[in-house]
């Protein structure tokens, strides 16, 4: 069923009785050409692009819970391509371009809203760094704009400009950045993949991998063995657990990141603001809630819930940036599990086991990468060669000293 304005009107006149489930609920077949482990944004996007762009068939997505129940439903919905390093920026700009055409492409309203993102700076050194980052973005075909203090003030007059310790001196703006309705991304990809024959199998936990003579033959699941020629793993925070089934240790730790939503407020923030002096970023949802977040808790965790010190830290960041936020009440908070890699950048690569491919290490920046991650992972699965924008995301970059460390923190995952 194709969605359109006409369809909505027709259904409205006939009591909305013609809507059908957006995807099937098939039982697993005995074998597939491709198995994607992980029915989150990245896994569903991979299946979608494998079927649509790379014309592959016999594809299954295995999800241990329900699709979109992990990090694609837990993030703060921000999309942007404001990276500095060569290994990253072309990839994220590719992702940004895919976001721009996504809704037409998969015929689903994902509420892509290019409302603009600003990264504030508070010192001369930060201004220099923002200028350099903006130039790097422009050289890779993205958009960037340096705003002075008055330009920021005209956008967001309520910010704490005269903070004695961290006065706002300006911001780096990416107007094409913004927010996307995160659940709709998972649902849109799921529907698009399902329409093209992909089996989306929920409540199917991968409990083992069958590997013989260095080649993957399929996966053991809670719903029995499923054979596959190629297995692609895209399970974010559970990366280490799933890849342990193949005997692999990964260059990553799992950490919990918390996010928050305030009660609904009148329109206040029409873009995305990130604080340069503390770890705090905020936007406003279409329902009016302020959506904000901060740093990871900082210790290994698979708990999907954090602790109070970070709640306090995020609240302090918010109060320091926009004191009026102190009058808003917090409505909800939650945690998601991040696969924090050793250099803060992802891995999209083949493994030493033939037919086994890995996509992970997204730290807490995976949502914005969803379309490109799916596209380049599908490219790798279908063609066995990395996509041109993802050649740096290799397993062996650590041993070779080719880290992509945007923050320059070294092999300390909780600092990225």
């Amino acid at each position, binding site marked *: 069923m194709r969605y359109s304005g006409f369809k909505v009107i027709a259904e409205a006149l006939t009591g909305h009785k013609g809507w059908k489930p957006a995807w099937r609920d098939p039982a697993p077949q005995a074998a597939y050409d491709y198995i994607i482990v992980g029915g989150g944004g990245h896994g569903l996007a991979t299946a979608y692009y494998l079927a649509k762009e790379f014309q592959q068939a016999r594809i299954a997505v295995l999800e241990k819970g329900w699709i979109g129940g992990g990090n694609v439903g837990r993030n703060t919905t921000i999309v942007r391509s404001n990276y500095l390093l060569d290994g990253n920026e072309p990839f994220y700009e590719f992702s940004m371009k895919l976001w721009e055409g996504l809704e037409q492409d998969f015929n689903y309203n994902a509420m892509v809203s290019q409302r603009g993102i600003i990264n504030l700076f508070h010192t001369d050194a930060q201004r220099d760094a923002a200028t350099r980052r903006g130039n790097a973005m422009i050289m890779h075909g993205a958009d960037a704009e340096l705003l002075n203090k008055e330009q920021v003030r005209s956008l967001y007059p309520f910010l704490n400009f005269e903070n004695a310790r961290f006065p706002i001196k300006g911001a780096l703006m990416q107007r094409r950045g913004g927010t996307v309705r995160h659940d709709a991304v998972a649902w849109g990809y799921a529907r698009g993949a399902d329409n093209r024959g992909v089996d989306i199998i929920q409540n199917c936990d991968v409990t083992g991998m069958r590997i013989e003579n260095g080649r993957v033959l399929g996966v053991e699941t809670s719903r029995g063995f499923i054979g596959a020629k190629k297995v692609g793993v895209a399970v974010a925070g*559970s990366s*280490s*657990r799933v890849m342990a089934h193949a005997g692999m*240790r*990964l*260059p*990553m*730790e*799992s950490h919990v990141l918390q996010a928050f939503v305030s009660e609904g407020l009148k329109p206040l923030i029409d873009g995305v603001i990130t604080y340069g002096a503390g770890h705090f970023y905020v936007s406003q949802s279409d329902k009016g809630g302020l959506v904000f977040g901060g740093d990871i808790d*900082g*210790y*290994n*965790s*698979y*708990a999907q819930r954090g*602790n109070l*010190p970070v709640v306090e830290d995020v609240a302090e960041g918010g109060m320091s940036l926009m004191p009026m936020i102190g009058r808003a009440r917090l409505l909800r908070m939650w945690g998601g599990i991040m696969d924090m890699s*050793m250099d803060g950048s992802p891995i999209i690569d083949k493994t030493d086991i033939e037919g086994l491919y890995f996509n992970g290490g997204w730290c807490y920046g995976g949502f914005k990468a969803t379309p490109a991650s799916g596209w380049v992972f599908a490219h790798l699965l279908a063609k066995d060669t990395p996509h041109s924008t993802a050649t740096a995301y290799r397993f062996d970059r*650590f*041993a070779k000293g080719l880290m992509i460390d945007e923050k320059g923190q070294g*092999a*300390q*995952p*909780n600092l990225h």
Partner: protein
Amino acid sequence: MIINHPLLGPRDAQEFIYLGDAALIHRPDGMAEGALERFIPYTYLRDNPAGSHRELWYHEQGDRSWLVVTRNTTTHEITAVEMARDVARKEGRSK
């Protein structure tokens, strides 16, 4: 989280800095043959278990001791706290 310091009693986890897996105690000998091959997994690869995890915490805003905390990564429950010094000695690391 409350970390029950062996010397100071229960302390808030906020007083501590987290380093990571306690396996980091076993730093390879940089002068030995094949040190590079051992340093790459030591520096970059982690077990990252879901469940019981032994990890290094540094009491920066306290007595500046290093602790080995055994904590469940799925519940955040802390089951054991030892001085890292004692653990390292027991495991043959230090003199």
